[in-house]
């Protein structure tokens, strides 16, 4: 289960990287980033998965039992943060794209090479 998930995650990361590195359209590049991020999130959650255990929400306080019942909550907490950070970065990138488009009326990444050397 977690192996399938984690390989999906890595595959999505590669796919996202491919998008970032090969696509010429700026929006596609940002899409590549969202897929890349999704991949990482899946990898992170997979890493915290414990075979056959339940979600980390307890009904009663029972310390000894809880430890054997739930999956690792820490990666989940981290992923929550990562998702929101990803949203922030994506939104910022998109606004950049908007402004860049306004600058040159183009979304082609090759039209933005004014700074070099």
């Amino acid at each position, binding site marked *: 289960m977690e192996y399938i998930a984690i390989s999906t995650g890595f595959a999505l*990361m590669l796919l996202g*990287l491919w998008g*970032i*590195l090969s696509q010429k359209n*700026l929006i596609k*590049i940002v899409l590549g*980033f969202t897929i*890349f*991020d999704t991949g*990482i999130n899946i*990898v*992170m959650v997979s*890493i915290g998965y414990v075979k056959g255990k339940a979600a980390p929400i307890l009904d009663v306080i029972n310390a000894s039992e809880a430890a054997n019942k739930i999956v690792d909550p*820490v*990666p989940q907490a*981290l992923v929550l*943060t*990562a998702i929101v*950070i990803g949203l*922030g*970065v994506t939104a*910022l*990138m998109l606004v*950049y*794209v908007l*402004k*860049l488009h306004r*600058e*040159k009326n183009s979304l082609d*990444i*090759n039209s*933005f*090479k*004014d*700074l*070099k*050397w």
Partner: protein
Amino acid sequence: MVGPIYIIAVALGLAFVMGLFGKSLKNLSEWAMLAGLGFMTFVSGQWLLEFMNNTRAVETIFTAGFKPPYSINLQMGIQEAFFTFIINVVGLLGGIYLFKDLKQTGPNAMMVFLVFVMSLNVVVMTRDMFNLFVFLEVGSIATAGLILLNNNGNALQAGMKYLIATGIISSILLVGIIYAYYFSGSLNIDDILAANLGASKVTVIAVFLIYVSVLLELKPFPANGWGIDVYTAANPGIGALVSAASASASLFVLYKLASLGGAEWLNYIAIIGGITFVGSNLIGTKQESPNRLLGYSSIGQIGLLTMIVGLSNILGEKMIFIASGILISHYAAKAGLFWLSGIINAKDIKGWAALRKSPFLLFLFGTFVFALIGFPPFPSFFGKWELIMTLATGGHWAWMVTILVGSFIEGIYLFRWLGYAIKLDHDELPDFKIEWNKIFPVWIMAIVLYAVGVYVSPLTEGGMFINYLPLMFVLFLFAIDFLPIYIKNTVSIGGIIWYMFHIYPVLENDLLRLIFAGIFLIGGVLTLMAGYNKKGTRKGFYPMAMMMYAGLIGIIESSSMLEFFFSWELMTAGSYFLIIRGKRSLPHGYSYMLFSIGGAYAILFGFGLAFASGFDTSLAALGDINILPTLAYSLLAVGFMTKTASLGLHIWLPGAHGEAESDVSPMVSAILLKAGVFGLMLLFLYMDRASAGANNLWYVLGWVGALTTLVGNMSAAFQEDAKRLLAYSSIAQLGYILFALSIMTHLGWLAGFTYTINHFLFKAILFLVVGGIVVKLGTHNMYEMGGMIKKMPFSFIAVLISIIVIGGIPPLSGFAGKWLFYNAILEKGWYFQGALIFFSGIVAFLYLYKLIHSIFLGQLKDNHRTVKEISAWILVPSYILIIGIMIFSAFPHWILKPIETMIAPYFSSQALMWDGTKALTSYGYWDGTTIMIVVGTAFVLLLTWLIVLSAKAKKIEQFNIVFAAERPFRPETTHVSYNIYAGYKKALGFVVAPGITIFWNVVSTFVLEVANWFRRIYSGNMQNYALHVVLYIVVFYLIALGGF
């Protein structure tokens, strides 16, 4: 005590509240932001102070009230306090600097600014891995926003590149973190470090991912196009923050995590840092845009610091001192430079020529450049010194070479830039106005550099003995720089004379030093006297001249290698500024500086080897170098020979001396060159005479000296420019000295001393007088002069006497030198070299004749009919020097006998005997006093006879030359002395063919072409930059972990 957590709470709280203020309360937001930054600075400063007074233990801040690793904890120790303090200071100053820009953009930008500085604080303090990631992200998002303060296309593109690259990098970091958590069961940095993940082949991959992403944050060459563009396009106020604050924080992260993987990984870090340091600086050499250049320099400096972190195992406990010295210099200088760049607002570094409208800005700029290169008295000087010494102790030659090569390359572009600012003639100068809020932070940074430099110097071994008194005097002269010349000149001369009395009792029993102190100080007074004939304020001249003299005298006084090197660099800096003052001196000052720093680094390397041999910091350590002694001696000799302008290292001299101002030429020629001679003498006395290496070196240096003499004299003979002729003559004279010293016998050294003193005397006279004439006539070209004997009789006599000394014609002291010289050569048996020297002695007559003939004899030029004798302020010191020549000629034993006594312990055979005033060797004898009397009498008799004769002579008026039908295309070709030695040139010109100049040109072109080739990777395409980042990761992975 205010807890560190309040840095975060207050900054965030303020930022959140500021959203309410809206546009109408812009001013309130602005002051609130500054107050917040001030508070943050206060808190971290308070902690820093406590730690420095040792009144505090490291403070851990537990958030959420639980112990780590179950909750996030922050740490405040002395290092964290230091880093947060410098970050907050530059944040506060940056806020002041950007006061108007932020106000224009509105409260939103201020919130971003505040949060940005806060995030760096957390990055420094946090001890939790994921928390580190979160606040690194906060920092990069804030940066991406602040880049857009400059609302233009370039900033947008740069910001997008930054976002893409940091997006990939931080994702890789995240994967590394989650794996580190998976392997260690904790997110706490201390737990992860303790888990020793580097040890297992499975877990090491987490280590790799964390390292590679932290390193990529530091913008390693060549995967750093995205970072450079940010520096290029962002508002320089933001550039300053990224360079000074963000980079410091990222560096601290690397330091925090340095022990994650173990020793092998530290090696990789050091290598990556070294590549970045050299590579980034190399590419900087082709750069013309100021902000981009600063970007390359920033990245290079951070590379150096990365390397230092990587070398932490080697550097041991010295590492903190070294890193903070270099860091603080980079921090203050880079922030200051970016801010300056924002004030000047030039597209091209050539536009910085506008800077000299404001001497204070120039002062600041010079301060920053010298601090970056690592000149005294800045902290980087001491940092680099300790770095080289410590590396030498462990025998890490490759690292030493890397550091010195990288620093040298950095010097290439920084001094080109500084030269442009001081000297360049450039038409498109930007207009700029200096606003208080923009210049204030720059001043603070400059003061920080000086203050920290003086503060850290006692922390180095030997540093506590550095004499700051002369430097204080320099500062004082800066303070009174607005006063007219005659006051400053008097103050300077007074200062030197006072110092003479001060230093005499110290050196009384050390004749070697006393002689050189005499040359430097008496020479200083005499050459300064010539300054009285100038008018105005002569801005900047006196502090710089005094800095040179401070350095020179410091070299004499120093007892440790550190003091010596400190003074050496001081002298270099001062003389550079003096040389570059000349009208057309820009390229020459530049090449002088490059040879000087190259030479200084050779010396530094040699000192390193000496220190490593016995852990002795005193100069006496040169006496027993047992690690690679021949290399050490060669490097030291080469270093000193850059100052004596020996063959191969001489190409800077003709221009530098020829184009310098009329009273600067004698300073840098008659006086400054002797610093190199002093260095060589010290070195030669310390070298092990029994070793084959030393003897081979001397043999080679003997040849170098002889060839230098030949080339110098020949080149002088073919010169049309009077001052260049003298400059080449200096090269030759220094060649004689090098040759004489290399003989390493009693006689040889006596000859060397005699030449040294003679050269000081006559070259000062010649440069003073010829310099004065050149100014009077308004030309350097001898074919435009002539017939000055009647207009300037006193000058004529001074020049005549000087060339008699150079020519070695009896009865003057030049003959004494020659006599000793040939005796020494015969005794040593260096016949081939001797023949060369003898031949060049004849060539010397050619240029001497040309000099006096073209200037003083022949026809008076039409436009010179009204010129008068040169200023008495030049003649008086010249004639004082002539008195010196006369005394030395008539009573040479007054000086030579004590010198004999002094060198006696070093040279076994007493080849020279004295019989009253008569000097005897096995080859003959010479009696200065008697010769003087005989020749003097004959001269007076002949002169009287001549005068009697000339009374009867019929005077013929000068007539115009009438050209038959045509005027020559180039009138100078009709001058008798124009290209007078064309015939010789045809026959022997190959000797002076500019082979060496061509060699150095090829070297520099090669460097620049390599730089040009490498920088093509910065294609401007953001996708390529992302590709570089990914490729960097892959390559690093394959190298580091590909083996299994």
